[in-house]
């Protein structure tokens, strides 16, 4: 009865697609720009892969080619993480409901 974990991942993948589909429909159009910016920021979870790539292999030779690519990816993703969330934050400031 052992099921290949791939099947599970596939299920998760597909369900996530549905969630993504629905989540967006319920976003008010005026928030589309922040939405785009926040999804952009989120998509930099790729940093998880980058960290694994950077630290892969023995801890002596830390700058093998593959690690270098990992480090580069970390920098890129990090720019995106910080930049993305902060910019979103700035944008959302504008949408603050005024006090009455």
């Amino acid at each position, binding site marked *: 009865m052992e099921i290949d974990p791939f099947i599970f991942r596939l299920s998760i993948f597909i369900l996530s697609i549905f969630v993504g589909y629905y*989540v967006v429909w319920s976003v008010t159009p005026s928030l589309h720009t922040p939405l785009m910016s926040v999804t952009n920021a989120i998509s930099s979870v790729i940093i998880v892969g980058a*960290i694994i790539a950077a630290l892969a292999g023995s801890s002596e030779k830390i700058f093998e080619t593959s690690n270098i690519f990992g480090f580069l990816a970390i920098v890129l993703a990090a720019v995106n993480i*910080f*930049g*993305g969330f902060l910019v979103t934050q700035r944008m959302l400031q504008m949408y603050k409901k005024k006090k009455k």
Partner: protein
Amino acid sequence: MTANLSALFYLISGILFILALRGLSSPETSRQGNYFGIAGMAIAIIVTFLSVGNFGEGFIYVIVFLIIGGSIGAFIAFRIPMTAMPELVAGFHSLVGLAAVFVAISAFLKPEAFGLGNIGNIKLASLIEMSLGAAIGAITFSGSIIAFLKLRGIMSGSPITFKGQHIINLFLGLMIIGLIFYLCISQSNNIFWSIVMISFLIGILLIIPIGGADMPVVISMLNSYSGWAAAGIGFTLENTALIITGALVGSSGAILSYIMCKGMNRSFFNVILGGWGATDQSSNTKSKEQKPVKSGNADDAAFLMKNASSVIIVPGYGMAVAQAQHALREMVDALKKNGVKVSYAIHPVAGRMPGHMNVLLAEANVPYDEVFELEEINNDFANCDVAYVIGANDVTNPVAKSDPQSPIYGMPVLDVEKSKSVLFVKRSLSSGYAGIDNDLFYRDNTLMLFSDAKKMTEEIVKSL
């Protein structure tokens, strides 16, 4: 950290990302949503550290690079003017794409570190996943760069089309598939690099035929691509967080571009497949020198006005033509319920008959004490958040104040441009009775709402 525990935490981080997007559904919860996103990201990063468990020198470098990247990002985020948002997002996308490519390359170069087999003997599934991830990442990267250049104005915003464009794209796409197939058999380095290179090319070719006006859609679509790339890598790395987030971003981006197309009344496929839409478009734009205008939809207008503390309505002949007075009255009622202060500014010659606007407003039962003549209200524009100009044109035209050559020079005009934002409801950029162009349409604080006045106002009521 055990694999189970880290899987659990990745799941949590995925859920936090879902909640982040969910938060965006309304302005009230949106900032909270952003915090969820940040939390999810933090958990993902920390868990990765813990599960790799390698706290040697490498770890320090990772931290260093993280900080470098983070500082750059933060710097950009604080410095960028709000008006440059779209290109900023495009730029950021390119980074994500490139990062995905790098991770894929790294995995290809050292598969054993990821448990994918050995060099020259990588698991079939992983090979497919990783090459797909790299290809999509590369497309995202080069496409975003083009979008960035177009938006920044470094590259011309007009669509670049040439004959056979679609055939070339098709051919390149098929080529990638063939190469992936061949890669699976040969496991050759060169082929992997070719895939990456060709994908870069595809990215460029896909975006250049798309015009500047459609860029927001493109950005959202690229966003979607970057999600799929992340998901591909996620499968390679067997990482739930990457899969969930990738799928989430992938589908939400695609849907968002679809919604945006619908909102702009454009065909989704025409936009995504670039050049196909270009022919119709160019005929439209030829006739007149094109100054950029910002155009919005009912939701934007509703949002702006709902959050304003005072709104001034400026009706003109177009309101009469569209018989929009009842809808207008309803809109004002809805705004007042939201606590917005609303008044009407009547220009002495608005419409085509003395008192034209008064007749119509009275018909819609607008209370007289909300209706002001030009002299009474003209100073209030400076303190008002939104001027809602509905079917008026000449009576707002500032040229009457500045250009003695203009046929309307000397006529007093309503100073709508002094309010924080101006919404112009009219069907086109065409001129009014006096037959002269109105400079206000092209101002930064103007949002054009192209539509019949009644229809637009009704839609605003709906979205209020």
